[in-house]
């Protein structure tokens, strides 16, 4: 397992509030990793910093030797809410944007993914339901050939069928070398898929364990995750 991502002593403040403090995280290649934590725990911010779109942090982020933001952006694929496009933009136009802008964007693969997700290229962004929009975002993210994929809450607020499609696309399109980091605030649907679990709480990475270790302690990943939060009630 080769080293992929190293986050070292990362601290990030915004509006004088600490969002992340002393975060350390190491990921190796070829894994499916869950980034678990409550809403507002700092999962999205951590992903944004790794992806190079959040600024003014302390600490280092090293993705296969790339520490500069623009170099990192070339080596990872991050789910984007597509807010840079107007609502009248068609799926095929978004496809063209990605194909021209990202050298590693594989159009054939996008077409396959798009068909798998049952998305019509003529549809406008405004016509998409939340589940369809999320499926499009996943298809665009996976059509880039990178070593690290950051999926920020891909299952939030969408129906069961769309969730199933997204989970299946992860199984089908993940190649052996690449690592997928999936943030979520609940885990049961993807728990059988995971290699590792990262718990984010109190503005930092509290624990990072392999899924197998969690299971060997006679716990489901769900119970393990929830244990970090029930402790709080006892205090």
């Amino acid at each position: 397992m080769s080293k992929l991502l190293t986050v070292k002593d990362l601290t990030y403040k915004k509006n004088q509030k600490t969002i992340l403090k002393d975060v350390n995280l190491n990921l190796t290649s070829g894994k499916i990793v869950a980034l678990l934590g409550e809403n507002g725990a700092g999962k999205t911010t951590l992903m944004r910093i790794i992806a190079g779109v959040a600024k003014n942090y302390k600490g280092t982020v090293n993705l296969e030797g790339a520490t500069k933001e623009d170099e990192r952006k070339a080596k990872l694929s991050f789910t984007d809410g597509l807010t840079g496009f107007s609502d009248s933009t068609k799926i095929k136009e978004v496809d063209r944007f990605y194909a021209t802008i990202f050298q590693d964007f594989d159009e054939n693969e996008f077409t396959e993914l798009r068909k798998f997700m049952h998305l019509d290229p003529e549809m406008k962004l405004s016509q998409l339901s939340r589940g369809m929009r999320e499926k499009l975002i996943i298809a665009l993210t996976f059509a880039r050939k990178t070593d690290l994929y950051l999926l920020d809450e891909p299952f939030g607020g969408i129906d069961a069928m769309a969730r199933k499609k997204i989970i299946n696309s992860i199984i089908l399109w993940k190649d052996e070398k690449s690592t997928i980091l999936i943030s979520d605030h609940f885990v049961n649907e993807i728990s059988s898929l995971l290699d590792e679990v990262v718990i984010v709480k109190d503005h930092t990475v509290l624990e990072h364990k392999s899924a197998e270790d969690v299971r060997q302690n006679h716990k489901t990943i769900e119970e393990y995750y929830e244990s970090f939060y029930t402790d709080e009630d006892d205090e």
Partner: protein
Amino acid sequence: MEFKDNIPIYFQIEQYLYRQIAMGKLKAGEKIPSVRKLALELTVNVNTVQRALQEMNAQQILYTKRGEGNFVTEDTELLAKTKQSLIDNELDEFVQNMEKLGVKRQNLASTLEDYLKRSKDHE
């Protein structure tokens, strides 16, 4: 498929495939579904399926044809043995549960016989 908590998933996949073979859903010499298909079916990581298949290859329940995939062994003796160990496992559990309920070992056979007779009457 629902996975149990405290057992590694790759091991549970093995068990799942053993059952498929024992029940005759996968026959001797037959090609088993591809790694990706199995991963999709069971909602697990491709790596995990691969690991399970590796273990089964090591136990010679499966054999790999290059470029074609994995096949169930044609060694009927080994298959029978595998089936027997599955049955043994189930019986083990049954015996243990009965003992917990206070049914003594020497009475097990008669208890079971009695049960089978009663459930037959109900049909």
